[in-house]
């Protein structure tokens, strides 16, 4: 469904993605993990076409995304920090987004209703709290029932009730056979919502397989310690790499 092929990206001198390869299949739910600054958001923004890769290509539904814009119709994106025009009202924002996709007539209003956004539709986006803005982002991502859902830290900043509502919605969409991509630092959420684990470290994929095999490889039977172990390994590998290069130079 989404193929990321040999993507490299530099921001100035900082190499964020190095010859990055990944496949995302429909019907699976992926947990995109990695320490801060490992390139998770960059890879998501590259898939969305907001960041232009230096080399490599990305295919969505078999079509290269370069120069195309219609593929974004199939993607619902919930950004890490939702930033909206401050003097636009919630209602206007929703009608504008609907206007952007005129061919879609059936809206998925589950989250709009669950978060009670209808009652607030005359509030300006600038006056909303961070959590409410997250609710708006989430409702917008699911509004057009897209095949692909990309959720960047979806539960951060939400209150416990909202988190449960959102998680239930994600599970429902997962059962419906959508492709879901989630980044998060909350391991329990990821374990609940995903079946595939992708671990990124310094712009490279270190692990990409099912969560079961991750547990098997690390010898842990719970998700969180398994990931912790994986992180330790990557750090060690980095250390050995450095030692090796040191040996080579001397």
């Amino acid at each position: 469904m989404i193929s990321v092929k040999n993507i490299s990206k530099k921001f100035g001198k900082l190499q964020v993605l190095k010859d990055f390869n990944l496949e995302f299949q429909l019907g699976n739910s992926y947990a995109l993990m990695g320490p801060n600054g490992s390139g998770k958001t960059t890879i998501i923004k590259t898939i969305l076409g907001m960041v232009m890769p230096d080399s490599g290509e990305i295919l969505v539904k078999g079509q290269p995304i370069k120069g195309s814009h219609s593929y974004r119709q199939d993607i619902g994106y919930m950004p890490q920090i939702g930033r909206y025009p401050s003097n636009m009202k919630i209602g206007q924002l929703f009608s504008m987004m609907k206007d952007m996709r005129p061919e879609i007539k059936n809206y998925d209003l589950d989250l709009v209703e669950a978060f009670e956004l209808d009652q607030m539709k005359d509030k300006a986006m600038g006056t909303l709290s961070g959590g409410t803005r997250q609710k708006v982002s989430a409702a917008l991502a699911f509004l057009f029932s897209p095949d692909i859902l990309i959720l960047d830290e979806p539960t951060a900043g939400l209150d416990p009730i909202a988190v449960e509502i959102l998680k239930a919605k994600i599970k429902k969409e997962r059962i419906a056979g959508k492709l879901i991509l989630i980044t998060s630092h909350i391991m329990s959420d990821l374990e609940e919502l995903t079946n595939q684990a992708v671990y990124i470290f310094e712009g490279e994929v270190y692990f990409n397989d099912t969560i079961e095999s991750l547990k098997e490889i690390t010898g842990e039977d719970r998700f969180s310690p398994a990931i912790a172990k994986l992180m330790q390994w990557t750090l060690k590998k980095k250390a050995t790499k450095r030692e090796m290069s040191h040996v080579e130079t001397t």
Partner: protein
Amino acid sequence: MLKLLKYALYDILKSRFAMIYTVFMILVAVSIYQVSDDLSKVSLSLMNIMIMIVPLISAVFATTHFYNNLEFIELMLAQPVKRSHVFLSQLLAVILMLSLSILIGFGLPMLLWGADSSLVTLLGVGVILSAVFAGFAFLASVLTRDKAKAIGISLGLWIYFSLVYDGFVLYLIYSFADYPLEKVTLGLVMLNPVDLGRILMLMQLDISALMGYTGAFFQQFFNSSMGILVAGGTLFIWVLWPNLLAMRVFKKRDF
């Protein structure tokens, strides 16, 4: 595209800035009309104010607008719309707002107290200068990642075209006063949209005689159909290139 423009315009026309700018233009025009009854004096005074103010306001406003709307731009880029349409809608909204302010601010008093051809040229030059400097501002904005830096570049361009360039031309004319310089000055004028606008205006008034032999040469050139075509074409190029270049950069920019 039109949908995007609709939402961008909706946002910008509601802003406090659009109101203040229009009221300011009205106040300037009304006060100058009150001071003098002579239309050519009115248009000369209005021109002197406009040629300084309009590029400055356009440059600063367009830059701040781009950075204040970065969130909106990012939101649009994740939607199934073309990048060039996102850019054009923002740019056109800014140019339309700036032009409307001039047309209303200067146009209303003109309707009330009368206008001649020079005042109509004034409106046209105002709209063109707004578009040129909005283009420079967007170019500065897409090339930088920092609002302060972008405003700095826009202001720098304004200072260059409004003040520094004229100093340079004057210095050249004084240094080479012994040589025939009409054609050189004409060429130099083409390289500065602000000067080009000013000359186009001055040619409508009968004061070009004050400018000596060069003035007479200019008068002859700009009153021929060839001259108008060249001047209009050059201004058109000045509107196009910063805007198109900014769009090219925007299409490849990371957000």
